[in-house]
């Protein structure tokens, strides 16, 4: 089967919306890395850049929504073209949320530089952020290459991020019990960790959406959730 429509303008429309998603994905990847770096290196300028760049991400989401609506109205897409357009909308929504979390990380960096440093978590958070950024990169590749297998691998990967978050949760509890003066900083750091963990969940949703795009069906089996902090009542 040919991949091209008889009407070539239709192909150009679909390609241009997908290019916008890839562009948005690139900006969000950079925001995650820069946000985590600004935290570890206490780089207020870089944090400021992340906050400013979020506007561009939000604008791209609006543009994708508009172009997708236009495509639905004018082209009446069916079958995999319809899935392409629906997926674009969903991915753009997830990317916007991830971008917000990255911006939030940068905001908290600005607050954290004023406080006394807690050794350890910054580097762990940056590792966690890198992990999520790698997942996002793979999901975008899976999306543009229509690779359901790669998307499935990303989905399995979320487990690792959850594990990292669990470990950090315990670490923060320990710091806070050791010295109550750590509480404010640890609360901020914990929110950052939680937000990165949420980014991982959103990337996982994106992976599921890519599987739907390729196969026409969402994966049925529910992903094993590894975030067990909801059940932690004391530090062992």
């Amino acid at each position, binding site marked *: 089967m*040919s991949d*091209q429509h*008889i009407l070539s303008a239709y192909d150009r429309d679909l390609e241009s919306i997908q290019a916008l998603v890839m562009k948005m994905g690139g900006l969000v990847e950079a925001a995650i890395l820069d946000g985590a770096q600004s935290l570890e290196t206490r780089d207020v300028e870089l944090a400021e850049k992340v906050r400013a760049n979020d506007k561009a991400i939000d604008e791209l989401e609006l543009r994708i929504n508009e172009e997708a609506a236009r495509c639905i109205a004018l082209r009446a897409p069916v079958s995999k073209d319809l899935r392409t357009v629906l997926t674009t909308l969903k991915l753009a929504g997830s990317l916007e949320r991830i971008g917000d979390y990255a911006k939030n990380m940068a905001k908290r960096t600005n607050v954290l530089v004023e406080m006394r440093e807690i050794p350890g978590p910054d580097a762990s958070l940056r590792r966690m952020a890198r992990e999520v950024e790698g997942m996002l990169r793979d999901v975008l590749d899976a999306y543009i290459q229509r690779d359901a297998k790669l998307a499935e691998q990303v989905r399995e990967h979320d487990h690792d991020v959850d594990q990292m978050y669990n470990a950090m949760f315990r670490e923060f509890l320990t710091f806070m019990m050791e010295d109550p003066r750590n509480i404010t900083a640890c609360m901020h750091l914990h929110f950052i960790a939680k937000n990165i963990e949420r980014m991982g969940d959103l990337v996982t949703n994106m992976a599921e959406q890519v599987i739907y795009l390729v196969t026409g069906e969402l994966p049925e089996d529910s992903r094993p959730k590894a975030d067990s902090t909801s059940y932690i009542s004391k530090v062992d």
Partner: protein
Amino acid sequence: MKDIKFSARNVQVYYGTTHAIKDVNVDIADKTVTAFIGPSGCGKSTFLRSLNRMNDTIDICRVEGDILLDGEDIYDKRVDPVQLRAKVGMVFQKPNPFPKSIYDNIAYGPRIHGLAKNKTDLDEIVESSLKRAALWNEVKDRLDAPGTGLSGGQQQRLCIARAVATQPEVLLMDEPCSALDPIATAQVEELIDELRSNFSVVIVTHSMQQAARVSQKTAFFHLGNLVEYGETGQIFTNPVDPRTESYISGRIG
């Protein structure tokens, strides 16, 4: 699952040496709109016409295999094609009212099939048929006017009224809206949706959007083969066969 109205088994249709329909097996449900889609020359109209033996009128046409209506073979020697066509009505691409009054267009079929005992009966059939075709209000004051004087959309609804007047069980429609404007098309589509509470409707259409709008089941034909047959929602969101995918999404097959 609704009752099966038509059941086709290993149906082949030949025009002379041309093999136009190749081994088609399909069950068409009662009280359901079934759409036949596919590129020109794929055999969808040929197959539709074989459901009420319209192909009998073509000398070189030969039908093999079984086509059962309520379990009875319609190609059996004992079946009278005229009676069959009263049961399986047809509406064509171009509205083709008789050059008679609106009233007589509807009354013709019931008269020759002896469906009305008297004038009152016949009046009632004419009124109810026109109402079913959503035309009554527009023509009730001029039933004596010629049917050919109506607008295209009204003429097509007149033909549908004429087809339902003989109380058929199945209505075959071959591109019923291709000569109509969007408003008349919407009226006919609304009508098709209403008709499905009483009849089995089979519609051939080149408009994929129309098939998506009016049908519950869709069959995709290609080069004489029935490629895919399924729930309309499934065919248009996630077709199984790549040829169906190509066709419905407007790609080069």
